[in-house]
């Protein structure tokens, strides 16, 4: 199953750092997010884009995760050569991640 089936996402930027939220549609799926959407998997998923460290923050209060991706925006929004300087489209790719439901 794709992550998109159980969660939604928005991406933000600060300097050369992107953050991607992963919000479960239903609270019952939060434990699945915790188990399946790990830092290691996200690192692998974005190996072409993210050059730095990735930190995962857990928000059980809203059944969501927040990923902070360092060195992810080609030097930063204000000087990047990339087409999507803000990395706004990163969340879209994360939603394509495969997750195991059992």
């Amino acid at each position, binding site marked *: 199953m794709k992550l998109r089936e159980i969660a939604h996402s928005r991406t933000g930027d600060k300097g050369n750092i992107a953050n991607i939220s992963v919000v479960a549609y239903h609270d019952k799926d939060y434990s699945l997010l915790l188990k399946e959407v790990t830092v290691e998997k996200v690192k692998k998923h974005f190996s072409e884009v993210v050059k730095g460290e990735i930190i995962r923050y857990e928000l059980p209060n809203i059944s969501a995760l927040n990923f*902070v991706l360092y060195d992810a925006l080609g030097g930063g929004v204000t000087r990047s050569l990339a087409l999507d300087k803000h990395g706004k489209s990163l969340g879209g790719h994360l939603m394509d991640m495969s997750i195991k439901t059992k």
Partner: protein
Amino acid sequence: MIDKKNKKIRIGSGAGYSGDRIEPALQLAKKGELDYLVFECLAERTIALAQQRKSLNPKMGYDPLLEERMYMCLPACIQNGVKIITNMGAANPVSAMEKVIEVAKNLGLKKLKVAAITGDEVLTFVQKNDYELLETKKTMSSLGNSIISANAYIGASAAVEALENGADIVITGRFSDPSLFIAPLVYEFSWSFNDYELLGKGTILGHLMECGGHITGGYFADPGYKDVPDLANLGFPIAEVTSQGSFTISKLPNAGGMVTTATCKEQLLYEIHDPKNYLTPDVIADFSEVTFKEVEKNKIEVIGGKGKEKTGKLKVSIGYEDGFIGEGQISYGGPGAIERAQLAISILKTRISTYLPEVKEVRFDCIGQNSLYGNTKLDINPYEIRVRVAARTSTRKEAIKIGNEVEALYTNGPAGGGGVFKNVQKVVAIQSILIKETLVQPEVHYKSL
């Protein structure tokens, strides 16, 4: 005397960025039964660009849409007693104040008091001290003489002072975004700047509201998964706040969009890092226990915001000139599109390395295949593809040549290239430093009709 304990304050968000739609703000001014309308219009780099406009003309440097926004919204705001708080002053809050008075005169308004807050500009001061840049860990001197602006994110207190002195409109330059929303709450409810719990709640309110339509269903829709009604007429949000800092988020009943727990959750995490430590000049807000509850359709109650003592440091955005980016694009379509696009790129690589040795950094994309996520998915074969090259150069002259090399593919490149686009951009980049808040002394100026 008004019973402060039981009153509620209604704050509308009139803009999520400098170029945002204006009519949703006008709808809120007319029908929102608002006490305040806040326009947040200043992105990280906007103020450095505004500083450049001011250096060309000392009367400019405020938000380019200030005049239009005021012409549209001011009459309804005055008629309904809605006060305006905005960072549309950008690099020149005092000239912005004078412009608003001029607009008010032209509209035939009789009475208006406008305040402008300055003091965020700290360039002269920080240049004397070689602060460390947060991004590169090098000191400011590493940027040489390319620095053009330094603006501190200041806290709510100067805006509270302006409201206490009867301002109908408060115009700031660089100002912490959520603090634009905290100021009216501190003023109306006599909150203490030492009550970090309340300031934390106010900051969460400001954070949820500051992107305008982001919380009413803008930037949310994903057809079939997250459907949002009537985005062409998206309404902007209204926060209704009690003296204890509890609040709801809603929108006008007939406006497009929607306010749901899901739109709120996405916006809560937008552009934040550690949810327990969201730093502002006023407070360290804690988002980690916030929950959302639907009290009625399109009305969400926000519960559980917290805060702790501020750091005493202010973030300062340093704007600096960082050369130029030259860019060119061309499309290829039909069978073999990707092969011809790749041939075009290999030609461009040779041309640039041979004839443009001054280029410092260059990037090639096949839009439709690898421009967003690198070579993550190469097993796709698009029917049309757009080649893009972007390069960093020291001079404009060199940057122009990048687009010209792409254009020359019309007569020297693969078959069937079309739709060339060329662009040159002067780069104003941003890095940040931290300074002690006591080093910044905001000043409030007034002008009345």
